[in-house]
C-alpha cells in the first residue's frame, strides 16, 4: 500500500538550517538534537548543497520485513510505517537494514524511532522556512 501522503524534498531550496530536525527531535524526545531526529540533512561540498533525507515509507520496507516482532506496521490512515513502542524490543535490525539510516533505536528509549508522518501533518514540513520540504497528498 502506497502512503497517502509523502514528504517531497527539494534540495535546491534547502539551506541546511536543520530546523526540520529540531522540530522532529522535539516531537520524539521533547528536546533538541538533530542526530536523534527521523529526518536528516546531508551537507555537501562545503555547504554548497544540502540534501534532506526522509523515510520513503517503502512499498517493500526492509525495516518492517526484518523486524522480529513485526513492530513496524502500516498506519491505515496515512500509509506511514509506524513503530509500535510496546512491541519493539530495541534490537535495531531495522537500522541495520535500512539503506538510508531512517530508523533506529535512540538514546534514552529502548525502541526504534522512525518517521510516522506525524499523523498526516509532518512537523518538519511546518518548520521548514524555505519550501525545501512539502507535504504532497496523493
Amino acid at each position, binding site marked *: 500500500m502506497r502512503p497517502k501522503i509523502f514528504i517531497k524534498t527539494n534540495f535546491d531550496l534547502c539551506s541546511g538550517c536543520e530546523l526540520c530536525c529540531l522540530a522532529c527531535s522535539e516531537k520524539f524526545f521533547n528536546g*533538541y538534537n538533530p*542526530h536523534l531526529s527521523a529526518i536528516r540533512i546531508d551537507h555537501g561540498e562545503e555547504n554548497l548543497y544540502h540534501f534532506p533525507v526522509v523515510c520513503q515509507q517503502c512499498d517493500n520496507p526492509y525495516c518492517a520485513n526484518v523486524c522480529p516482532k513485526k513492530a513496524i506496521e502500516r498506519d491505515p490512515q496515512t500509509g506511514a510505517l509506524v513503530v509500535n513502542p510496546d512491541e519493539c524490543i530495541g534490537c535495531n535490525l531495522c537500522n541495520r537494514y535500512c539503506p538510508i539510516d531512517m530508523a533506529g533505536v535512540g538514546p534514552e528509549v529502548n525502541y526504534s524511532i522512525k518517521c510516522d508522518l506525524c499523523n498526516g501533518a509532518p512537523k518538519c514540513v511546518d*518548520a521548514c522556512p524555505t519550501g525545501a520540504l512539502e507535504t504532497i497528498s496523493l
Partner: protein
Amino acid sequence: MPEVYMNQFLFVDLSSRTSASVPVPDWLKLDFVGGKGFGAKLLYDLCPANADPLGPDNPLMFMTGPLTSTSAPSMRACVVTKSPATNLFLDSYFGGRFGPEIKYAGYDGIIIMGQATEPVYLWVTDKKVEFRSADKIWGQDAIESNHAIKADLNQFQARVVTIGQAGEKQGKLSMITCEYNRQAGRGGAGAVMGSKNLKGIAVKGHAVVRVSDPDKFKEACATAFQEIKESPACAELTEFGTSSAVAYSEDMGTLPNRNYLDQTFVGADKIGEKAQQQHLFLGKAACFGCPIRCSQMGAVRTGKHAHFITDTVEYETAAMLGANLDISDVRALARLNRMCDEYGLDTISIGSVVAFAFEAIEKGVLEPPPDVDLTFGSIAGAQYLIKEIALQDSPLGKLLALGVRGASREIGMESTDYAIQVKGLELPGFAPRGSPGMGLAYMTADRGACHQRGFMVGYELGGEPFNGEPVDPDALEGKAEMLRQLQDYLAGTDALVKCDFGAMGVTPETYGQLYTAATGQEAGSDFFSSLGERIWNQTRLFNLREGMTYEDEQLPNRLLKEVVPTGPQKGKVLSKPDMDFLRDDYYRVRGWDDKGRPLPQTTEGLGLTSENKFKLPSTKK
C-alpha cells in the same frame, strides 16, 4: 536552579593529555548566563595575570549559551581567550554547526589549557575525549584539514573546527575555522590554538537538550520566527547576505579606501550585491537553526580564478580586501577571500595590514621585494602578501604577521600614524570620520577596534532612530550614554549567544521570553542590559589587570588629523579634543574613574566583588 544547561564543562589539559568534566556552578549560570558571560568570568579566573597569550597558561575556550542548540532562531557560540594581537580579552563569535554540537556532546563549553608536545586533534563524543595525532594533517589548510579529520575518524556527521597554516605559525591575524564559511575570525584565536599544537576539534553527541517550559518555549520561538520574518533588515540578509552593505556604506561615506585615506570607493558597484549575484551566487545556506540563511553560496566558475566554492564575499571582506586595497574585480576578491579562508586568516585584519604595507612601500619606509607589484589595486600583490603573512617564510611576512600595530612599531618612521588599529586590533570596514560615536565605539570596545560592540554609525549616518529619536551625527553630548546602552545590551545578549543578524528582528522582550522559558529564570525588562553591564565591567577588570590604560583607548592619527578628501564625509575628521571629551564622558557614564578604572561602588553594585571564583581540578600526572 537554571535548566537547559548541560551542567558540565569539558576541561582538556593538552600538556598532560588528560580531560575531565567540571561542574558548571549555579552562581556562574545565574550571574553570567553563558557565552560571553561565561568567557569573561572564566578568563579572569583561569588566566594568570600577564600570561603569555601563546603560552600554556592561556585558556582557549569554546562557550555556548543557554539558547545555543535549541530551536530558538539564529544562535551562535564563541571563542574566548587572551588575544595575542591585543594581549587583552578576546571574544570571537561563530555560527555554523559546531557550537550546538558541544551541547549535544554533553557540555556547556570546552576549556583547553596547556600545550601538546606533538600536533594533535581532539575527538569529543558523548563525554568521551580522544587525543589523536595530527602529524599527517599539520601543514594542511583549514578546509582540507576539516575533511581530513572527518575522513580519519570516518565520521562525516561530526562537526569540526580547525586552524590553517597561519594559526600553526602563530601569526596574530590567524583565526579558527568553523565549518563551513564560519570563523572565529578576529584577534588571533587561531594563533592560540596553534601555540597549543592543536590542529582541530571534532565533536558529535547524542545528548538531548531540554528546556524548562517546552510550551512557553515553543510560543517564544514562534514569536521570534515571526519577528525575523517581518524584519526588512533580515529579509535583506536572506536576499543578499551582507553584500548589499557595500552600497549602504558607500552611500554613508564610510567605505574605507587606500588604507582609510578616503571613505568612498569608485569601484563600490563592482563588489556589491549586484556584482556578486551575477558572478558568484548560486544558492543559500544557513547556520544551524537559522531561518535567515544569510550565506549566499556560490562559485567562481569563469575567468582566470575559476573554479572554487565561495560564500558571500561579506561586507567586511569586500570593504577591507576590496575597497581598502583599491581592488574592484569581484572574482579576484573572492579569490583573496578564499586564500584567507584556506590559510586561516582574518580578512578584516589582512585587508588592513596589506593596505598598511602598500602605503609604507609607497612612502618608501618599507622595502618591497623585487618583481612583485605591491601597490594599491594590485591583486597579485595582495595574493603575494597574504601567502607571506600566512606562511611567514620571509622577513616581510614575519613583520606583517604581527598585525599593523606590531609592524608599525618595528618600522617606526611615523608609520603608526597610518597603522589603523586600536589596542592592537585593526579597524573593521566602517570608516568612522563623520561618526564620532563610532570612533568612541572603536576606542572602547573590549577586544580592540570592533564594529559589533555598538554600531553607532547606523544611528549617526544610517538614519536609524535611537529610542525613537533621530540622532545628530555631529553632536557629542549623549553619545557616550548611547554607546553604553548599546554595549550593555549586546554583551548581555552575547551571553545567549545571539547572532547580530537575528537580533535585527528579534526584540529584547522576545529574547527575555526565550531565556525564561529555556532556563526557568525570570528576566525583567533590564535583564540583558544589567547582565551586559556586569560582563562589560568584568572584561574591563581583565584588561586593566593585563596592563591596558586609558592611553591605549585612542584612534590612530590618520583619523584624528587627516580630513576625508572626497565623498559624503568630505572634510570630516575626528578631532582629538572631541574624542577625549567623548572618552571622558564615557568613563563617567560607566561609573569609572577618569583613567577608565571601575569605581568600587560600580563593581560592588554589579556583584563583581563576590568571592566566587571558578577553579579547575589539578591535572598533575
